[in-house]
């Protein structure tokens, strides 16, 4: 990555190709890259405070960022048509892994999610968040939009079958995110408003039925969300403490490294799912507005890339990658400030954690590749 030279003077509305002395062109999307790095950098500053200035944790996070950044650079160089060719294989492969987890998964925290591959353990359900939108986009790439009813049925199966498998692990949070990712892709295909309305009605009607199938701890989370005071020592504790942290931050925050909620260890999961609260306490509303603005720039850039993309597949992929990214932001921030029930979703590009960092940056790599395609075609 050190060899990348970026033509800072180029028109930032377009993807950029710079030429190295060796004649190797390296494609990156400058606005995407800069915003991504800005958020990651901000995240590091907050993480430094959240982990109590613990060097080795920061180093691990830096390594993850490095790996993620490599994935970004590599994928950004791949012509998007290869994504299309790979899409069904990726989907089938991840689906196979998911089945394998069901049969032979390690039981961690009472759920079968992890698959041990010797050195590393992987969680196939995480990859489904990428594989499902890819598969939906692949299915539609040579069909005319909007999809017909039978086609919508196939698309729904592509989304729901893996989601059900994940929900059975049981990992309701990830299952819902897979549904969100796939659903948003279907939405972008231009599926008719009547079908959208019908799905909405079915969803409302089936909610009580789904409630019957939920596990006790999943129901408890919903109860805790509705009334955190009911369990102030257990799950409610997290949400009570995080709202105190956010609220006490005020407009300008208590200042970096001065968050009492975080440093007196009132706040749980400070470096992972609840890092948003650390940021809120130390940097206040101003810090959060800056962060949200950066996220909006990233999402805006992604939607622009989708808007300008040249074919159905890349449009759908770019659109769904961007919107899913926003869903993560919203779900995490909403959970931490008490708008949504507790779902284990990290704050994108900020929370400590490897899988999320690497898959997100890989996703942005694909976005950059799609953005670069236009340039390539124009050239």
């Amino acid at each position, binding site marked *: 990555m050190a060899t990348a030279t970026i033509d800072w003077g180029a028109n930032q509305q377009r993807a950029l190709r710079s030429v190295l002395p060796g004649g190797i062109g390296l494609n990156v999307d400058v606005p995407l890259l800069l915003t991504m790095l800005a958020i990651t950098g901000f995240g590091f500053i907050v993480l430094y405070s959240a982990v109590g200035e613990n060097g080795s944790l920061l180093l691990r996070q830096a390594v993850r960022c490095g790996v993620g950044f490599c994935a970004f650079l590599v994928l950004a160089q791949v012509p998007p*048509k290869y994504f299309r060719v790979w899409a069904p294989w990726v989907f089938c492969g991840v689906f196979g892994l998911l089945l394998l987890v069901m049969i032979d998964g390690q039981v961690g925290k009472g759920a079968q999610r992890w698959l041990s591959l010797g050195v590393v353990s992987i969680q196939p359900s995480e990859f489904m968040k990428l594989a499902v939108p890819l598969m939906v986009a692949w299915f539609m*790439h*040579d*069909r*005319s*939009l*909007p999809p017909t009813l039978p086609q919508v049925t196939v698309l729904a199966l592509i989304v729901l079958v893996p989601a059900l498998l994940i929900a059975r692990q049981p990992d309701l949070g990830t299952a819902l995110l897979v549904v969100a990712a796939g659903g*948003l892709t279907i*939405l*972008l*295909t*231009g599926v008719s408003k009547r079908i959208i309305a019908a799905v909405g009605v079915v969803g409302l009607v089936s909610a009580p039925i789904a409630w019957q199938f939920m596990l006790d701890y999943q129901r408890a989370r919903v109860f805790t969300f509705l009334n955190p*005071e009911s369990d*102030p*020592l*257990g799950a409610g*504790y997290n949400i009570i403490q995080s*709202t*105190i*942290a*956010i*609220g*006490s*931050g*005020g*407009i300008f925050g208590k200042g970096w490294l001065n968050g*009492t*909620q975080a440093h*007196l*260890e*009132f706040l749980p999961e400070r470096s992972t799912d609840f890092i948003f609260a650390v940021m*809120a*306490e130390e940097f*206040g*509303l101003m810090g*959060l*507005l800056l962060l*949200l603005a950066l996220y*909006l720039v990233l*999402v*805006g850039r992604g*939607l622009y890339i*989708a*808007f300008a993309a*040249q*074919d*159905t*597949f890349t*449009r*759908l992929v770019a*659109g769904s990658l961007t*919107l899913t990214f*926003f869903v993560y932001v*919203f779900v995490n*921030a*909403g959970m931490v*400030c*008490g*708008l949504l029930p507790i779902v284990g979703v990290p704050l994108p590009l900020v929370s400590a954690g490897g899988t999320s960092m690497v898959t997100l940056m890989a996703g942005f790599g694909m976005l950059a590749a799609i953005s670069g395609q236009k340039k390539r075609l124009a050239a």
Partner: protein
Amino acid sequence: MENTERPFKDQMREQKLFQSRVIVCAVGVLLLTAMLVGRLVQLQVVDTQHFTELSEGNRIRTAPLSPTRGLIFDRNGLLVAENRPMWQLVAVPEEIDDLDGVLNTLKRLDLLSVVDLEELANNVRSRRGFERFTLGNLSESQAARFAVRRHRFAGIDLQEGLVRHYPYAGAGVHAVGYVGSISSDDLESIDRGEYAATSQIGKTGVERSYETILHGQVGYRQQEVNAQGRVLLDPASTEGGEGQPGLLTRWPTPGKHVVLSIDMRLQLAGARAMGVQRGAVVAIDPRNGDLLALISTPGFDPNRFAAGLSRNDYVALTTDPDNPLFNRALAGRYPPGSTIKPILGLAALDHGAVDPHEDHYCGGYFRLPGSTHRYRDWRPQGHGAMNLHSAIVESCDVYFYRLAVELGIDSLGSSLVAFGFGAPTGIDISGEAAGIVPSREWKQQQFANPADQVWFPGETVIAGIGQGYMQATPLQLAHAAAAIAASGRRFKPRLLIGTEDAVSGVFEEAEPVEIDGVAVADEARWQRVRDAMLGVTSEPGGTGRTAMLGTPYTVAGKTGTAQVFSVGQDEEYDEENVDERLRDHGLYVAFAPFDAPEIAVAVVVENGGGGSTAAAPVARAILDAHFGIEDHGDSYD
């Protein structure tokens, strides 16, 4: 262009459709972001004063409230485990400026018993800043001494606590068990939230196996405290304080009281009769499996564990050669010796392997056909003509060598298994050993070397007198004696006979659990065997007669002597010349009264010599205590 395969695709229309959807989504993104910002403004601008108070000036502390541990009673209502109030010195780490200095001062004032101040300081620092850390227990005078100097110690406080106390000290310890500090191993198996305010947990015995009943449920209270840690508002301490906005209290639910089947009178009598001897005593009610006594000697004082045992004291206990922590009643494995002869007699009758009226001559030794090896009787000159009855009464070995060979190891083993040998009896506390009932399969599994896996006929011979590979726990022996007394009915041995709600006082009785009984074709065979056991204590020549002379109740019994040390083929076993640890174990099983048995007892005295001299007097003491005979005198001691 990429997708021109289908010429009728309307590129422009599709792009427009997609772009319109992207715009809809972009609007959605903005709306949701606005929602987030709205929520943040509400928290950080509108309500920020409230939250700032909560977090900075006034902090809400959620303090867990520990439930009171349930009491333990014996079957007659005697208190076996109680909670005593006492003072504890606690530290709130975040409020202490100079931790080392404060600890040193406390040590100088003799308020800290801990030796290693540095380790203590590290322990305090490792806690969350607002978590109270217990530094140690204080006596009344220590507490008073601290109270007058309290103003000098910011962040150090007195706290009233309860400590477990066992009024009978070591007398019931192997049944009741004890509590101790929660270890990291314990943490693996408990709900940490439930134990947030609890420092001790049941470690062994009833305290452990009924931990969830005894412990109760944790409560909590929220307090407002200022930066110095002074409690500004504690709803739990003010009348009607539960109504304070934002401050909640949930009172803990005390643990239930537990009523044991144990009779402390028997427990004390047995411990006294055992004296300094190592061994175990188990008494069972044959009608329901109630354990009336469960003694393992030497015992130890559980109060030392409850009060916090120093490392040195613990090491001293674990390295004691007499192993007082070891529960011999449940886990001690002894060759049952002749105590199993009534069971083998019954099995032989049931298999038709012996005619009860037929006499066999005992000349002091037994030889397998075609072998010169002599299996000796305990009486060198022999017993003369013996039938089943007299062979049990006089404990003739030769008769039972022959009987074992006639019965065969397979039937012999299965009859012992039916009485509960070779498997845990299922008593409701942990730590029970299975013991061994040897069989051909057992030997195959036990030994790796094929030459050792073969079952030898000689091994069947010595199995007939409960020697060889066979091992049984005192609990199994008492359980089997109870089964004989109850004509084959068996109950899971139990220590808990009921629980009592500490608040409502409602008593909930536990039902006895009957398990698979011993099936015998002819019920009269039970009486035949029991008659022989009565003969042991009543007929001239009965091996258990001396110890049971003059009892106002009728006793049936059986002595046993288990070899620890193998005597060579032509040597004599001479008690005087054998090291004390290699002397025979003395065993005795009994039940009483003979006609309507209500107690079965098994006694094992390690290295005590013969069963009739070492073990039978202990059994007598237990039976006397059970039948309310207070002062038997010292004639049997």
